[in-house]
């Protein structure tokens, strides 16, 4: 090899003074191939699709249940309530009659609607948390429950349900989640730096300890109906959720969701590891801890509302990444709407398939999520 082989580029004297001189010629941007590929991954295409599917799912699943209520009746009833509300604000509008009787109106707006809304926010929040966790730990198996958060929440819930601890269940579950998170971080930090791997292993240890305590408490003190109640909660359930629960899940998901979304570009920079992220100007350690804490807080809030619903946070981000690629400003919102839709349908199945019996929704998300995950695994093996 000679230097003439290597010096294929312009000689120093003739080269551009800087890498990119002002007024550099515009490269031709639109080849047909690019346009097509860009379209298939465009957030402008996928986000409206995801939102549309979610809205349609909400409307349709509002009609599903023992009482036969049509979409038209629901739409008419919603219109009635909206105009009645405006009328109440002193805006002069004519309020049309409600097509639903008072009981049927209650079934829709006090029974099905808050339950659906809770499911939508929980599903969206779990998918967001999963997507973020997978990015910052660079671990495709990461899910929202990675740091022992769900086991801690379960311990808090069991303490209320079985030991009669005198606080509201969501408060106890959220407290348990935070205590577990604190224990995980403390354990990971003993005698060394907090690295992602140590943190995950510490999370496993804390989760196992909490699970053992939960099992022992159930074994020692659960009697009769308490069993069913606790199993329902441990498997995850949205039964009987009211608008108060919607508020908790909704505020947590929307607030933390927007903060996390602001880290979208930063999360992309983690794709090639910590050193590459640092070389792109990312404060790696600080970013990781801010995001771990935010997702753990959100997960704690969601678990306290619905119990630990598995597989949504694990599988949804993978499916969406497959469809639209790994850029987080696109991935996270689409995954959130996808998670909401997924959990709505899983919960609709949970309350209808074995009616009048209810199945804990966590069983259904696992029953659907596990085969999907297996399929993803087989698929990635073929691609590799």
């Amino acid at each position, binding site marked *: 090899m000679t230097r003439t082989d290597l010096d294929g580029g312009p000689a120093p004297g003739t080269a551009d003074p800087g890498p990119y001189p002002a007024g550099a010629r515009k490269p031709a941007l639109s080849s047909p191939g690019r346009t097509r590929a860009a379209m298939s991954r465009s957030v402008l295409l996928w986000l409206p699709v995801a939102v549309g599917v979610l809205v349609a799912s909400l409307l349709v699943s509002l009609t599903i249940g023992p009482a036969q209520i049509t979409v038209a009746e629901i739409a008419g009833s919603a219109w009635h309530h909206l105009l009645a509300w405006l009328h109440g604000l002193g805006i002069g509008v004519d309020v049309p009659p409600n097509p639903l009787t008072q009981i049927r109106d209650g079934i829709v707006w006090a029974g099905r609607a808050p339950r659906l809304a809770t499911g939508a926010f929980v599903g969206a929040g779990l998918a967001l948390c999963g997507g973020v966790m997978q990015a910052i730990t660079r671990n495709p198996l990461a899910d929202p429950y990675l740091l022992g958060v769900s086991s801690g929440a379960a311990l808090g819930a069991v303490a209320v349900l079985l030991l009669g601890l005198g606080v509201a269940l969501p408060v106890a579950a959220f407290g348990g989640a935070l205590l577990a998170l604190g224990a995980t971080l403390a354990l990971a930090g003993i005698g060394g730096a907090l690295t992602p791997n140590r943190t995950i292993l510490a999370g496993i240890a804390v989760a196992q300890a909490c699970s053992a305590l939960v099992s022992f408490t159930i074994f020692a003190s659960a009697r009769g109906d308490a069993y069913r109640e606790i199993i329902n909660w441990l498997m995850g359930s949205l039964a009987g959720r009211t608008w108060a629960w919607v508020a908790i899940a909704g505020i947590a998901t929307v607030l933390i969701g927007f903060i996390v979304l602001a880290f979208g570009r930063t999360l992309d920079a983690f794709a090639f590891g910590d050193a590459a992220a640092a*070389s792109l100007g990312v404060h790696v350690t600080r970013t990781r801890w801010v995001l771990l804490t935010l997702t753990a807080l959100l997960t704690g809030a969601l678990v306290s509302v619905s119990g630990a619903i598995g597989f949504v946070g694990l599988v949804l981000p993978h499916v969406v990444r497959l469809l639209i690629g790994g850029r987080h400003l696109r991935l996270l919102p689409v995954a959130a709407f996808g998670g909401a839709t997924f959990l709505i349908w899983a919960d609709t199945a949970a309350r209808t398939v074995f009616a009048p019996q209810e199945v804990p929704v966590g069983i259904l998300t696992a029953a659907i999520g596990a085969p999907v995950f297996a399929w993803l695994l087989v698929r990635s093996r073929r691609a590799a």
Partner: protein
Amino acid sequence: MSGATEPAVTVADLWTSELRYRINATQILGGVDVSVRSGRVTGVLGPNGSGKSTLLRLIVGALPPSSGHVHLMGRDVARLSRRERARRVAFVEQEAHAEVDLRVRDVVLLGRTPHRPAFSGDSAADLDLVEASLRRTGALDLADREFATLSGGEKQRVQMARALAQTPRVLLLDEPTNHLDVAAQLQVLALVREVAAAGTGVLMAIHDLAHAATVCDDVLVLDAGVVAAAGPPREVLTPDLIAAVYGVRAEWVDGEHGSALVFSPLLGGGSARQERTMSAEAFRL
């Protein structure tokens, strides 16, 4: 060497002073001074574990130095924000990264991260720069491919494009020819020369001494974290130095297409390096 014909007396774009890194009591890097100048390629040589990657990581800010300073365009980087530093220094690692769910275009777009606010979309100027960077590295036809499906040489060219899209004054490369076949190695090295010719200073860790001698204007030889020698490659890479640092016998052989290094094991059993570490063991006992 073009380096010999350009005795430009310019202030270096980047220089380090007494850069040290230790993990607990173990010294990884002990007081390294290196400078990188616009238009020149500086090679960092040395055996495995001599501190080449650590030096690059300290300069780019992926590791905090135990002591010492990095000066960039005349300013101490400790006074720059991470983003300000990242606008001036780009870094390409040696890992293969099989599991990245990004298209090539999106990988190159990562180079704009330190130039963009967190919540902004991709500006037309960014996309133009991505296009231009891909063209410079000969990877434009890969733009819509999935990064994970590329060959090693293609990945390296895309990573170089990503680094160029960062519009750095100094480009750090960690073993850019690692795991590549010989044709891909030569392509990447030619690209390194082109990048330098366009005015960027390049600091490159590299294993292959013959490549280093051909491509680099200056080399820095690290041995156990300290500088064993520095200067133009043909002056530095003498048989004596190579024997002392690597423990192999080396010989310059002039051929039709230039000169090359030929290696053979040192005669007399153990290498000089082994003998030296053995005597150190004996001393400790």
